[in-house]
């Protein structure tokens, strides 16, 4: 009478590829042709560079935060492959609904680095006018959503959005990122359930990085995997080695093509690991053993790809160094520019609460502008 199910279990680093989870990039840098998405070399190089650039930026921003020059950063150290691979798999007409850890996807979409840095500083040129914390960016021109802190809210939104596209006869697909912790949120449940019922062209991208701040994935659910949760919604669930940028690309791309043809949503559990702290506010040494981190480091997505590129003579150490320097220089210039910029003007505080400013905000704006200024302490 028991419902029968075979679901792939939650994985250790050693199990996050191979067997029933196809890999493309082997740890030694060789390719598993069977699952290779067969990209042009230039495309593969682009993926690699995007991952490296993401990591360089992460490192620098963390430093800036330590120096007190920015207030906060939430990084993606170790998760670059699943972020870049899944972003790259989205077609030009598709939309990305971010969680908060995917600035790599934002930049992949062409969002200017300067704009991103302006967001980190919340200055006058920040697209969102310094209204949100660092790393809470918005990129509509790039078909990229708006970062919100509350966990999971973007999931149902991505369903409604892509359903709307479909209802208008468009083939736009949406993808939506969230962590494995977010699968416990009501929005995951509702998003998957509505997506299943509405057959919406939505790709649910679960970054299973094993941790939700200090809570390990085993405490998040008694389910055997996160992909298995799709069964509850009639949504196919797939696990992929999220530290393999090519495998991630392939699995996501297939799901996108299926969705675009009316085949409905897919839940993709991308197996990866949060090598750094949850954010600059977090010190993971308080709750996890270093050994686990080291084991996952061995599956490093950038290293693996670099080995591959070197093997096929498409890249060398020298080029690598030069590219990193280039990224650093580009970023430094943006930082310098961002730091020279003013804060958003005071009166912007009252803009955009509504399309038109009602009387009470006019009054409050006048009160603020005519009143004394705060000392800018914290």
């Amino acid at each position, binding site marked *: 009478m028991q419902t029968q199910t075979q679901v792939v279990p939650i994985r250790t680093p050693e199990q996050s590829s191979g067997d029933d989870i196809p890999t493309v990039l082997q740890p030694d840098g060789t390719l598993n042709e069977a699952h290779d998405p067969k990209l042009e070399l230039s495309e593969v190089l682009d993926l690699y560079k995007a991952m490296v650039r993401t990591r360089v930026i992460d490192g620098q921003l963390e430093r800036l935060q330590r120096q007190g020059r920015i207030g906060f950063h939430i990084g993606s150290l170790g998760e670059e492959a699943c972020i870049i691979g899944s972003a790259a798999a989205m077609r030009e007409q598709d939309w990305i609904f971010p969680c908060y850890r995917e600035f790599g996807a934002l930049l992949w979409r062409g969002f200017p680095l300067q704009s991103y840095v302006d967001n980190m500083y919340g200055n006058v040129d920040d697209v969102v006018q310094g209204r949100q914390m660092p790393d809470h960016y918005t990129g509509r021109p790039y078909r990229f959503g708006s970062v919100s802190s509350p966990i999971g*809210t973007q999931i149902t*939104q991505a369903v409604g959005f892509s359903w709307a596209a479909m209802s208008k006869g468009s083939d736009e697909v949406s993808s939506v990122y969230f962590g494995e912790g977010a699968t416990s949120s009501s929005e995951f*449940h509702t998003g998957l359930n509505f997506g299943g019922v509405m057959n919406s062209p939505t790709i649910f991208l679960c970054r299973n990085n094993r941790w939700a701040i200090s809570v390990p994935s085993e405490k998040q659910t008694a389910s055997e995997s996160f992909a298995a949760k799709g069964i509850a919604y009639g949504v196919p669930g797939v696990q992929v080695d999220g530290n393999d940028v090519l495998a991630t690309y392939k699995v996501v791309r297939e799901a996108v093509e299926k969705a675009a043809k009316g085949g409905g949503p897919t839940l993709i559990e991308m197996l990866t690991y949060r090598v750094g702290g949850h954010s600059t506010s977090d010190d993971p040494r308080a709750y996890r053993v270093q050994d686990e981190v080291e084991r996952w480091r061995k599956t490093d997505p950038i290293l693996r790809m670099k080995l591959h590129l070197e093997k096929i003579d498409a890249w060398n150490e020298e080029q690598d160094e030069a590219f990193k320097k280039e990224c650093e220089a580009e970023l430094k210039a943006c930082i310098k520019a961002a730091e020279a910029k003013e804060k958003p003007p005071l009166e912007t505080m009252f803009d955009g609460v509504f399309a038109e400013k009602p009387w009470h905000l006019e009054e409050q704006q006048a009160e603020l502008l005519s009143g004394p200024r705060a000392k800018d302490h914290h």
Partner: protein
Amino acid sequence: MAEMNLVQAINGALASEMRQNNDVVVLGEDVGKVGGVFRVTQGLYDEFGENRVIDTPLAEGGIIGTAVGMALYGLRPVPEIQFADFIFPAFDQIVSEVAKFRYRSGGEYTCPMVIRTPVGGGIRGGHYHSQSPESLFIHTAGLKVVCPSNPYDAKGLLLSAIRDDDPVLFFEPKRVYRAVKAEVPEEDYTIPIGKAKVVREGNDVTVVAWGAMLFEALASATEVAEQGVDAEVIDLRTLWPVDIDSIVESVKKTGRLVIVHEAPKACGFGAELLSLAVEKCFVHLEAPPVRVTGWDTPFPYTLEMEYLPLQHRITPALLETAQYVP
């Protein structure tokens, strides 16, 4: 022009806007085939099909969350929450997302939608089919809140709300869904959001009310007129942003204010209205403004008529306020 009740007027307004604008979609629990538990969406499913009139799974958070996505794409969703009491599973989406989307995205994304939901008591609904949660949404920056009292206003306000570029909570006073009838023009017309209506002019005391309580306020105004008290009755229609000019003008004239609402008193909208009146009309006030409201208890079943701020409680408040001598 046809005589209609509130349900018919809202139903007609939805149908006509859906005919004119293909982007308008209705979604919610039971809104499809059966036309809603109050039959407000009756006929829409047959006319517009299941892609524009969507019976959703039972999850208010999903109704609003998917509606947000639709709005971001460019549709004009009109989600229905079956009873305002059941809006709380969607509260996070409404206060964290719907209300803040325009602001937090620097205007890149907007989230226009009209969340329709029946409010209020007097229908033997007890705790969970009677509440009036307007003040929670007024406190949340970024939302407009509307509550019509009659079919004519309902149509005009609903059309304004759907065409508004901001999200609107559209509260429908279910106690008078079928009780209040009025002539409603067939043609398109709107009533601006943010404009109250003086439904009875008077010089002695101002009464501010909305929704089903408006009729109680009017009944009291008639009652006290016999005792020589000339009450001015304002139907707010839009609760937020409130029509401050109409209130100030009236209170400056009468010097006296009574506010009526069904929701509990503590931190209800009456507190805001009272505060605004004091802030803007302090020197004109000849008596302390008074709130006649639901009690600070959960909404009861058997004793609901003793809970509600009906005529029997408004009348003495009007008399006392009008006759107050410091």
